[in-house]
């Protein structure tokens, strides 16, 4: 579903040019669980932003589901994001002082799903991440970190995207909670067939994926199938 050819990203700041990404070439098939691993500053966030249609590449071609979207406008990209892509962030980014269920329904608001259909979709997503039903009406800021990340995953799933990006999803969680969040992502990949792209700097976390792309100084240094997939 994803095909990248020679993707590059150069940031210009006055006369300084910073190469954040160069010559990234790889493809991702439907249903894959892929980790992009690298130390901070390696360009993995830049790659995720481009793959997640939050940013445009400076060069190369990015073909998503057969369409070259390198030259799409900001609003056209937003339109694809709403239909095909879900995001899970390190810092959760839930709407504060807003109930769990409303947080999960947020993407449906922008997708234009009628009001009557939203709640059922949001409940299904919360069930899929095994979020306890008695906390659906709680406000997001009353939750623990692990619960917040589950809500964020449910939000990423609510519009049934084919592609889910998880940017350091365990970065703000303790090891135990992190493991549970990773298990939840694994389950979604195995059971519902969502393609998941995990961005992390920890090899421990990358170990949950089937395939690990290692990136360093803006270039891909290895692209390996993970033979020892973590199981929980």
């Amino acid at each position, binding site marked *: 579903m994803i095909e990248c050819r020679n993707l590059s990203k150069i940031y210009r700041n006055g006369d300084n040019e910073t190469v954040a990404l160069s010559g990234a070439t790889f493809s991702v098939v439907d249903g894959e669980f892929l980790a992009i691993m690298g130390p901070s500053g390696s360009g993995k966030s830049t790659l995720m932003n481009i793959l997640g249609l*939050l940013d445009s590449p400076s060069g190369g071609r990015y073909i998503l589901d057969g369409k070259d979207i390198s030259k799409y406008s900001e609003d056209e990209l*937003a*339109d694809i994001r709403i239909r095909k892509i879900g*995001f899970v962030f390190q810092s959760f*980014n839930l709407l504060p002082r*807003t109930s769990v269920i409303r947080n999960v329904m*947020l993407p449906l608001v*922008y997708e234009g799903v009628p009001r009557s259909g939203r709640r059922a979709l949001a409940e299904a997503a919360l069930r899929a991440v095994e979020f306890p039903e008695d906390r659906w009406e709680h406000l997001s800021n009353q939750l623990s970190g692990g619960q917040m990340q589950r809500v964020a995953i449910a939000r990423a799933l609510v519009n049934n995207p084919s592609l889910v990006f998880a940017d350091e999803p365990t970065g703000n969680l303790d090891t135990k909670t992190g493991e549970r969040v990773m298990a939840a992502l694994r389950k979604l990949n195995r059971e519902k067939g969502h393609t998941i792209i995990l961005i992390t700097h920890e090899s421990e976390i990358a170990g949950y994926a089937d395939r690990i792309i290692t990136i360093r100084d803006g270039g891909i240094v290895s692209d390996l199938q993970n033979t020892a997939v973590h199981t929980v």
Partner: protein
Amino acid sequence: MLFSDIILETYIALTTNKARSGLTMLGIVIGIGSVIAMIAVGQGAQQSVQSRIQSIGSNLLMIRPGFARSPGQNVSQGQGSSTSLTLEDAEAIRADVPSLGAVAPSVAGNYQVIAGGSNTRTSVTGTLPAYMNVRNISIESGSFFTDLHDARRSKVAVIGPDVRDELFPEGEEVAGKKIRIKGIDFTVLGVTESKGGSGMDNSDDVIYVPLSTAIQYLTGTESISMISVTVADQEQMDAASAAIRELLLERHDIADSSSADFRIMNQADIVETASSVTETFTLLLGAVAGISLLVGGIGIMNMMLTTVTERTREIGLRKAIGAKRRDISRQFLSESVALTFLGGVVGVVAGWGAAALLTRFGGVATSVSGISVVLAFGVSAVIGIIFGYYPARRAARLNPIEALRYE
């Protein structure tokens, strides 16, 4: 994004920080409220001036002495300062100008008036009984004086209701009572009916005495301060005015009508002059109030800019999820419009209330017109759009990646 979603988001955003939303809205409330109240005061003044002038009668011509000029000099001493009009002029007008109704010459002055223990200073008009018809004066109790009183120079007076209240506060029957004007005893014949009005030109705060009595005992000169004339047919106003002008120019031996020593005014001229004055007054009040509305609008912009900055991460998230620029800008624009619109509603009510209080306790005539209310709503919505546009655009243009990283 559905319209109802925008409304809901706006409601949540505004109620999250109620104190801030309330204070920002207060700026608009004060702005709109003062616009409504000030325009009400202006229009009230306009209406009361017009109705008072119209109550005098619409087929009225008033002839007053013009600017006094010494021969060979061009120094004006002010309107009405000359002593050019005489009783004979009035007689001549009555005799020679056709199609006139009544002709009433009058003199006027301000004098100290005493009755029993009370005293007041008021305007005394010396005139003929015809003045009643010319100026639409009605009698509430007693009677007006007659031509016989004038011929005999009787010391009789007809007083306005305000004068009665001032001099006889007990509310007793006043016909037959004595009052002293400029130290001379007059017998009260009756009281005129109230015509309303206030301020300098109050037709209720006046005393009428026979013209010849006034000339002999009060003013002491033969000159007339005004000749009021009604024209039988309103169509003939201009013709009558021209005929009077010609007659007086001839009688005063003036060849050039531009140097006439008198002025003829008709109702339309007076209404026009008064309107232009009160219109300016209304405009000035409105402009002052408009400035406070502008300040309120700047308050809105300030709050919206703060809100956008505070919610940068939220905006980044919404955009990452798939919100388009217009979704974001609509959301923020709707917040500022909701603030100004609600402020407008409260402001209209507050302004209306302020106008009512001014009328009740300040004695100021006010009139809240539908147009000013509609205008206030329109202006407040427009202010919401204008001052919300820049913050909303700023929010919509945020880069989602940077916004998500914003601390």
